[in-house]
């Protein structure tokens, strides 16, 4: 297993909330795709049914932190400073995917953009933009 894969695996295994969500991830080189299989406890609107907005936000945020664990390996979990989540479409009762792009990684702070989709990558359901405080740097 590569260093990146080990770091990702360590992150996913260590964080209890990742298991609560049921989130996993696949790695191609240093590019990570996060996967959130549908589960009934993630529903926010039973009538549609649709994923809870908070679940989508949380999944995007965990995707950002997981991507940082791959590229900025640290024994400690990085800390989110702020996020803006934009919702484009309802999250339907199916698997959701997400990819994070590290737009800038500074000494202390990283700027991250994350995109989530379901059936088609060109029909995103939500975006996240945020800043993360990097731990382990100093």
């Amino acid at each position: 297993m590569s260093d990146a894969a080990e770091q990702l695996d360590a992150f996913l295994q260590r964080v209890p909330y990742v298991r609560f969500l049921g989130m996993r991830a696949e790695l191609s080189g240093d590019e990570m795709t996060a996967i959130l299989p549908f589960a009934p406890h993630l529903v926010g609107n039973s009538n549609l049914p649709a994923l809870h907005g908070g679940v989508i936000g949380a999944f995007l945020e965990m995707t950002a932190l997981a991507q940082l664990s791959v590229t900025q390996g640290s024994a400690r979990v990085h800390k989110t400073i702020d996020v803006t989540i934009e919702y484009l479409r309802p999250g339907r009762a199916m698997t959701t995917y997400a990819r994070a792009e590290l737009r800038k990684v500074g000494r202390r702070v990283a700027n991250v953009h994350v995109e989530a989709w379901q059936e088609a990558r060109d029909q995103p359901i939500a975006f996240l933009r945020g800043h993360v405080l990097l731990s382990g740097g100093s």
Partner: protein
Amino acid sequence: MTDVPDIVRQMAEHMAVSVPQAAALGFKLVSVEPGRGSISVPWREDLVGDPDTGVIAGGVVTSLLDHTCGLACAAAAGTEPFSTATLDLRIDYMRAAAPRTGVTCQAHCYKVTRTIAFVRAEAWDVDQSDLIATAQGAFVVNRPNGAAKP
């Protein structure tokens, strides 16, 4: 506490405990009054985001803020209930919650138009004057009978 119509209180109780994600996280309704709502989430081992510290995950706080904002919208609806969907949500995390401690959130829906509700929320662990996170959101208003017209 200012009274809200029974239908709003029933909806608030349903939102806080019967929505699957809310039930899974163990949300508890603290209070509801016109345009305002408060929900808490007790600490639980499986909701931890940092195993080194035992601090509850940011994602749990995200769900709590989003959900409490939705509750405040419902509480602003009065006797003409509507459902909401999140359009955007901006969250600032000022500090981590205390280890092994739950979080309480209070949201205020300060403006509702025919189509959009505007909400502010704050979250704290122990002391409401020492916040862990604040949020600002816009929610799409879905009125029954397709009544939503700008």
